[in-house]
């Protein structure tokens, strides 16, 4: 049928391939000698944003936005790389034979797309991005380019993210109806949690919002950066006394023993995946909130068209559908099948847990599996 090939492309056959190739560590630019979001330690890395599947510790030199570097330091410690360099938005930086620049991606605080210019050709790497408004980060900036390397986390036509206000209202309606129960909301510690809080404030929720320990530092950082989040407090030792309050935690904690302290909470999950009911159930959502920091199907297509690119590389997510659609539009598209990414995906829970709640997992391991073989 019309199924596109799913084998790994040979980089040399593409027009962009002499500027950017695929190595086991990820996307690599030989003429500039750097990787973009490599999944294993490399000499020089350009990092689009602070999510654990894009930003890893142990590189020699890291070039990223101020906020991404700060976030990496918060998560991995100050010595997360040999050296670091700040890339200002729009600033053109010469690396070997190419010029690179960073442009807001609208995904989380500090998230950027990377533009590589060489020999009159422009290759843009989207990183993760969204077009929906987000009060906690700079809006997506469209880059006109020849080759567009796009994520496709929600690259299926069933994913159309609704306006956020309606989802927040769902949470607030439940909070009104079940006013004696804790509303425990699972949200990723970087980006989703802060956006959820900011959107709650925008809908008029002024009360204290309580945080799982893994969210505290990043929320404080957002506040430092001038993102208004209102009154926040760590859950700490509190438990049943938070009946009727809104509490945020990483999604992995919803089914953990930690969640038991609240008695019989309403369990909400904020994610693009919960649009699909089976996925929502899998995640234990009793109140699914369809809020995503990724472009949905409509925005993926719109962005591809608007960049003017004739060649599209589709990275992590549902590559097949988007490649198929590009083909139907006469665009040259190929899947990259990058291994190791999966923002908000099934692997991310584990990766994000690693970054955000390592101490907790350690505690869990010593307390819980003492007698296991």
């Amino acid at each position, binding site marked *: *049928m*019309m*199924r596109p090939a799913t084998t790994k492309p040979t980089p040399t056959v593409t027009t962009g391939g002499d500027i950017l190739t695929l190595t086991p560590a990820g996307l690599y630019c030989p003429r500039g000698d750097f990787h973009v979001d490599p999944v294993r330690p490399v000499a020089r890395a350009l990092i689009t944003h602070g999510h654990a599947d894009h930003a890893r510790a142990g590189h020699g030199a890291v070039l990223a936005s101020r906020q991404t570097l700060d976030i990496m330091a918060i998560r991995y410690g100050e010595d997360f790389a040999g050296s670091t360099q700040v890339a200002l938005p729009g600033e053109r930086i010469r690396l070997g034979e190419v010029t690179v620049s960073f442009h807001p991606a609208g995904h989380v605080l500090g998230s950027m797309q990377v533009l590589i210019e060489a020999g009159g050709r422009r290759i843009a790497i989207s990183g993760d991005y969204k077009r929906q408004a987000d009060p906690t980060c700079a809006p997506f900036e469209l880059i006109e380019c020849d080759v567009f390397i796009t994520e496709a986390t929600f690259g*299926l*036509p*069933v*994913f*159309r993210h*609704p306006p956020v206000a309606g989802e927040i209202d*769902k949470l607030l309606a*439940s909070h009104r*109806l*079940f006013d004696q129960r804790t509303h425990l909301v699972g949200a990723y510690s970087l980006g989703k949690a802060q956006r959820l809080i900011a959107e709650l404030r925008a809908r008029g929720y002024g009360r204290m919002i309580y945080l799982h320990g893994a969210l505290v530092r990043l929320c404080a950082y957002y506040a430092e950066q001038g993102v208004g989040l209102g009154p926040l407090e760590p859950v700490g030792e509190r438990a049943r006394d938070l009946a009727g309050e809104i509490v945020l935690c990483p999604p992995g904690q*919803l*089914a*953990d*023993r930690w*969640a*038991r302290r609240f008695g*019989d909470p*309403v*369990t909400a999950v904020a994610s693009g995946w919960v*649009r*699909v*009911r*089976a996925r*929502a*159930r899998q995640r*234990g*959502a*009793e*109140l*699914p909130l369809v809020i995503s920091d990724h472009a949905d199907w*409509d925005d993926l297509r719109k962005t591809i068209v608007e960049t003017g690119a004739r060649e599209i590389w589709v990275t992590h997510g*549902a590559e*097949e*559908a988007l490649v*198929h*659609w590009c083909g*139907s539009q006469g665009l040259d598209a190929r899947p990259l099948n990058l291994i190791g990414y999966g923002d908000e995906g099934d692997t991310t829970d584990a990766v994000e847990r690693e970054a955000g709640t390592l101490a907790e997992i350690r505690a869990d391991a010593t307390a*819980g*599996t*003492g*007698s*296991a*073989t």
Partner: protein
Amino acid sequence: MHRFATLLDRLSFEPRRSAKLALLGDYFSRESDPARGYALAALTGNLRFRNAKPATLRALAAERVDAHLFALSYDFVGDLSETIALIWPHSEAAGSGRSPPLGEVVERLERAGRGEVPGLIAAWLDTLDETGRWALLKLVTGGLRVGASARLAKTAVANLGPLSPDDVEEVWHGLAPPYEALFAWATGKGERPETDDPVPFRPAMLAHPLEVRETGTLDAGDFAAEWKWDGIRVQAAAGRDRTGALRRRLYTRTGEDISAAFPDLVETLTFEAAIDGELLVVIDGLAQSFNTLQQRLNRKTVTAKMMRDHPATIRAYDLLALDGEDLRQRPFRERRRMLERFLVALDHPRIDLSPLVAADGWEALGKARSDPSAFHAGGDAAAIEGLMLKRWEAPYLPGRPKGQWFKWKRNPFRVDAVLMYAQRGHGKRSSYYSDYTFGVWRPREDGGEELVPVGKAYFGFTDEELLEIDRFVRNNTVNRFGPVREVRHEAQAGLVLEVAFEGLNRSGRHKSGLAMRFPRISRLRWDKPPVEADRIDTLLALIMDGATDGA
């Protein structure tokens, strides 16, 4: 439609009964007539219109969506209606506030001809958002399946005011959608609806399980003893309406009208009365096990062959109304006498009397319970699951009144099994490992022994025991498969569970070839090493002894 869609969406994710009631109550009190009445009709399965077939919906989607993209999406989502609801292209009208009211959807579907249905659905899909489209497709394909029973919906209506669910049941079958009079009554804005239904459902009286220690405080002489039949509880009612026509209905104990499934029984209701009894399949004068009855219940349509091979009978044990008189306030002693006389006069082979068990005193009753054959149950023992004890002086009260009726089941079977896998529960229990798969030993080819799973149980333990098992599971996990943990189960290391169950069947679906009926954890045997748990031979012997369903 929007509010109804939101309600269905919330109900479908909500595991708690009390929260479902709150959601329903919130909806019924905010929504106006007739929408809330149609919602009630949808939830109770009382909407009658031409349903859309999956093929119709598929065709609608195919006109609008690339086939390959649809296939990839369907593959990911796994549910046809949901895929269509999500993938349906946005139109200008969506979210414009022009989404159709529920009342309009229902009324137009009721009037629509076959050819009109697809066009109507497509036009509505264009105006709704994702949740709205999902709810619409659930509605038009029939069967909401959002985990809210008819009884729960009626309870939510009753809770709008001072009514009880049984108050609603009593008038229910005389009412029709959109139930304006019912809502008016429930909210204190109207009188109890007058119905001229000659055969209303009369809410059933239910029994408590008898605890052995209660036999010390109760006087056996105060109770009539009957067999507890392993069929389905029914209420058979017939009466004349204002035109003099005979109306007949067969209800389940929850008030569901199942007349259509048993035309052979309904035609025998040639009286004006309401009988409470058990529906059984009786072949050659012998009551059959529930298994046999199930073969008939599982069929969607009733064929002549099915009625001939599995003839349904009512074994009557109470008389609730006779010739227009409500008998429920009379003591059981009187009702029983009237029932006996009524059945003699009726003289129909398909409606017979559930006999009293001639056993005096607790000791004799205990013997009758465990060995019905010794107390003249004869060949009917296959359909007996214990005793019913009914207070001679008790009126017929709806619900489960204290101290009036008791069920005393035959001793359940027990086996010591070893915990093998545990899975997290749902709702309140979602952070606990509360669903357990257990196994017994069987010989291995090399002469050793291995555990083979024989069943699953998720109740029977106390809250404290749940905590203990949960801790054990977390501390002894050897493998994880998604939400399931495999726990240590070796000869000298593991947890032995005493499992009680009601019967045993051979089953091709289980690795052990056995399926337990109604298994539950009755005790934690921390004192026993797994090697001392039962062997599969013990279970196989039970099958030989007739521990099969209902026997």
